[in-house]
């Protein structure tokens, strides 16, 4: 398999994860489950897209910048996910359970 083929495959897998994140954002029942969909699926999708683009670049500076962007997005979503979930709990939002109305 050529480098181009692997890169194409990684980009497509990334797009699938982004799609899953959007579906989760629309379909999940409360704010905690939606956070779960966004924080994991989307950053995994971004990681796959960054990996796919890394195979296409030849300059080390661009490659380093791509990795830096992904690490920054990871740190951001971890921090913000924790902060929003804690604030939602303090504001009295009860987590959805499987018997509840969806």
């Amino acid at each position, binding site marked *: 398999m050529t480098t181009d083929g692997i890169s194409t495959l990684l980009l497509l897998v990334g797009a699938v994860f*982004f799609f899953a994140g959007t579906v989760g954002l629309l379909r999940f029942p409360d704010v905690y489950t*939606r956070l779960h969909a966004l924080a994991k699926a989307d950053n995994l999708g971004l990681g796959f897209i960054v990996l796919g*683009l890394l195979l*296409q670049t030849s300059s080390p500076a661009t490659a380093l*910048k791509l990795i830096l962007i992904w690490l920054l997005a990871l740190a951001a979503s971890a921090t913000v996910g924790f902060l929003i979930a804690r*604030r*939602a709990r303090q504001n009295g*939002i009860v987590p959805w359970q499987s018997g509840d109305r969806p």
Partner: protein
Amino acid sequence: MSNLTLILSVFLLANLLVALLRVARGPTPADRLLAALLFGTTGVAILLLLSFATGSAALLDAALVFALLAAISGAAFAQRAWREEPGEATHDD
């Protein structure tokens, strides 16, 4: 190869448009902000793909700024902006 990156960036843009439904439906302010966070990650991916499709390196810096702003806006929202009275709807209708 640049065709594929263009097509994928259009696909991710469609994802963003669909996510606007969640902004419209809410119901809590946090749900609306989650869509803003989605704009953070998906917008960054779109900028990266466009940067490779068009060969302009400046879009990489724009993506870096997007990632920073998503973190700051989410933290500011959770720490400062979202204080509300209990008892309002937390689930979809």
